[in-house]
């Protein structure tokens, strides 16, 4: 019953999306207010219908409706509540349903909140959003229907892959999809601007807000995924350069470039064509990410459901949408001229270099991810491109970006002085250099790049602090939420960098076979293997190993490393025991007894210094993004003046021009 309602709502959403698209685009073309109103209402209805459809899917999972093929394949009656819930998006059909829902919600948000935009521009953006809705709802309905029934209902389901049964991963897809699909709004706005042949400051503001919001969600989504991988996969690693991780990294990088660029569009009237181009690329990469993950074309850790026929659909949509938008761009972009000049050394110049480096970083990830696929298609050769390639190409491109990061905000608009900027944050120069020398002395010169990058992290942090301090001391207007947001996000980048460097260069690993009673020393901890015990839960059996740890300062605590066997999936997982602290994590994985000795167990011990900074940094970045959104200046929806550009310029306070 519930499933029928869901299917009906889904089926209705398709013609409504068609209506949204047609009425909005035609209404805008003909200056027909009523038609545009119809388009807006259709957008709201589309959002409501898809929300209903998705709610039905969730209910089907929660109530374990085993007449649905999807529920049987991905759920089980004995599964905990949270994972039944999460199972509704933990599969191909369900995740696409979520995709389409977010797309419709984004359209609904534009229909309700977009009053500051010129009516025609908004209608066009809604029309584009509706067209995307038609394509993806159609794909969902015809090629991956989540409400497909089994001829005879099953008695029970196959269960969700146990590796995925983790709280962080349960909420990882929604954030990721809000990020991915949120980028459809900048895309729609960009295409609408091309159709319109002109842009305004309100448009730029919307571009910035929607990109920032999507980016913040994407940051959280990626960080959750990485945190899950860190705890669950048992290598103590946080990033594996897996194609699916790369697929989410690419739109993330371009989104950073885009919202920096949108600031310039909004405040200075430069980079207009470029920001439109970036908006198109950002969403294209988001769609590419969906294609890579969902088609299973790059077989990787994340591609569970692999069915090549679906890939063709998404690829066709990708080619149509991106190709169409880029064609329109090449035909229309010349109409959008930039009207502000700047010297190479200026804040605009810094954003230009930021964009250059981020785009090249993205290009190296793109090429590395798709190269094996391209080569295999072209001449059948099978090659692998793994972590060593990305570490050698992507990382060097990011280092100059990190150097530039604290300088950008202290450079003046239009014409700045590098020396002046350096002087303003000279403390950061000193502390950064001291950090490089300090780490060289303390850790040795073994990886030279590590000391350098660590110094850059410190340079960013101290630089941001200098900026905040000077800003508070100066007699200018009080800094707004967007200043705090920017500072937080920049500091977050520095914190992230410190964590990444410490983890990559200075973590310690020990792999030992121990018998109960044996002990060993790892990174200043004395660890004793006490005993093992067996436990069971609703859906798994587990062997637990108890370890007693004495730290250098005499503190004693217990760690329990666990290996689980999930009979429903015939799978085993390892639950690492982790002692978190800001200084570093002590991380223990219990292995099998590979050797003949029945009592001995193989343990993998890791000391991961400063590793929590990685997620702390990501959290700071996401919070920073949120702060920028909360800025009053961006929430105020002022009706757009005829030449919004000039009207906006008057509203600039001294602080922004300084």
């Amino acid at each position, binding site marked *: 019953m519930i499933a029928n309602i869901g299917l009906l709502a889904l089926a209705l959403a398709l013609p409504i999306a068609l209506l949204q698209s047609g009425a909005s685009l035609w209404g805008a073309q003909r200056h027909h207010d009523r038609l545009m109103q119809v388009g807006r209402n259709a957008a709201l209805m589309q959002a409501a219908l898809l929300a209903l459809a998705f709610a039905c899917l969730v209910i089907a999972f929660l109530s374990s409706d085993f007449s649905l093929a999807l529920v049987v394949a991905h759920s089980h009656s004995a599964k905990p509540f949270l994972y039944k819930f999460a199972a509704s998006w933990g599969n191909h059909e369900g995740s696409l349903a979520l995709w389409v829902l977010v797309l419709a919600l984004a359209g609904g948000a534009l229909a309700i909140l977009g009053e500051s935009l010129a009516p025609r521009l908004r209608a066009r953006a809604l029309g584009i959003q509706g067209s995307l809705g038609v394509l993806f709802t159609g794909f969902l309905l015809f090629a991956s229907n989540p409400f497909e029934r089994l001829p005879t209902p099953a008695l029970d389901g196959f269960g969700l892959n146990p590796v995925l049964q983790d709280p962080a991963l349960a909420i990882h897809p929604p954030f990721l999809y809000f990020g991915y699909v949120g980028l459809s709004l900048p895309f729609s706005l960009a295409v609408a601007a091309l159709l319109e042949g002109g842009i305004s400051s309100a448009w730029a503001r919307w571009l910035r807000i929607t990109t920032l919001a999507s980016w913040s969600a994407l940051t959280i989504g990626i960080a959750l995924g990485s945190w899950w991988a860190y705890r669950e996969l048992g290598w103590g690693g946080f990033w*594996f350069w897996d194609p699916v991780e790369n697929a989410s990294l690419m739109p993330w990088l371009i989104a950073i470039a885009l919202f920096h660029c949108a600031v310039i569009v909004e405040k200075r009237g430069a980079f207009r064509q470029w920001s439109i181009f970036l908006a198109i690329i950002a969403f294209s990469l988001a769609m590419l990410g969906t294609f890579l993950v969902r088609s299973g074309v790059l077989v990787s850790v994340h591609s569970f459901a692999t069915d090549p026929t679906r890939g063709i659909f998404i690829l066709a949509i990708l080619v149509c949408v991106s190709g169409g938008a880029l064609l329109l761009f090449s035909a229309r972009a010349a109409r959008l001229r930039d009207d502000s000049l700047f010297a190479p050394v200026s804040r605009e110049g810094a954003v230009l270099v930021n964009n250059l480096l981020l785009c*090249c970083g993205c290009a190296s990830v793109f090429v590395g991810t798709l190269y094996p696929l391209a080569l295999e298609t072209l001449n059948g050769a099978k090659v692998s491109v793994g972590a060593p390639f990305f570490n050698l190409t992507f990382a060097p491109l990011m280092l100059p970006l990190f150097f530039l990061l604290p300088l950008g905000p202290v450079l003046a608009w239009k014409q700045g002085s590098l020396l002046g900027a350096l002087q303003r944050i000279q403390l950061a120069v000193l502390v950064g250099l001291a950090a490089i020398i300090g780490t060289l002395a303390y850790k040795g010169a073994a990886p030279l790049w590590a000391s350098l990058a660590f110094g850059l992290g410190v340079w960013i942090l101290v630089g941001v602090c200098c900026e905040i301090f000077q800003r508070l001391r100066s007699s200018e207007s009080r800094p707004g939420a967007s200043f705090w947001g920017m500072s937080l996000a920049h500091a977050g980048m520095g914190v992230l960098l410190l964590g990444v460097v410490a983890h990559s260069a200075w973590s310690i690993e020990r*792999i030992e076979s121990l018998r109960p009673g044996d002990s060993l020393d790892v990174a200043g901890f004395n660890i004793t293997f006490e005993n093992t015990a067996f436990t069971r839960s609703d859906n798994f059996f587990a062997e637990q190993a108890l370890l007693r740890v004495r730290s250098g300062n005499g503190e004693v605590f217990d760690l329990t490393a666990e290996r689980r066997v999930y009979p429903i999936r015939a799978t085993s997982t390892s639950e690492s025991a982790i002692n978190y602290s800001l200084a570093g994590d002590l991380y223990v994985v219990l292995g099998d007894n590979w050797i003949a000795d029945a009592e001995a167990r193989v343990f993998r011990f890791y000391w991961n210094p400063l590793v929590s900074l990685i997620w702390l940094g990501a959290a700071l970045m996401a919070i920073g993004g949120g702060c920028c959104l909360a800025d009053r200046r961006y929430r105020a929806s002022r009706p757009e003046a005829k030449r919004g550009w000039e009207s906006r310029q008057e509203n600039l306070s001294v602080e922004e021009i300084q």
Partner: protein
Amino acid sequence: MKRLLVLFAAAVFAFADASMALQPDERLDDPALEARARALAAEMRCLVCQNQSIDDSSAPFARDVRLLLRSRLEAGDTDEEVRAFLVARFGEFILLKPTTQGVNLVLWLSPLLALAFASIVAWWYYRRWRAQG
């Protein structure tokens, strides 16, 4: 069929953690040689896994290759000889760090080319735009 797929997925995921990766009994006695072995193993793909190095993988195949690799090192092979040996056996697919020969040059040079291209385009636009302004 669907059931088969699920079973297959389960079989693949049986290796999806590190519990059975490099074991203590595989280690070489010479620390320098073992360090080289670890570095090499991190560059080799586990062919039956998904984007994992043999150093990280719990698959029996990965263990076999780790042992093979160590036996070559013990026999006195250089890193380059070990790589060549493994490529001869398993194909270039085993290298997570692709070679810099032939068409792979395109791959390795792409970030530099992208940077050069983007810089030139940016500079060219910037000059034209200054001239117009």
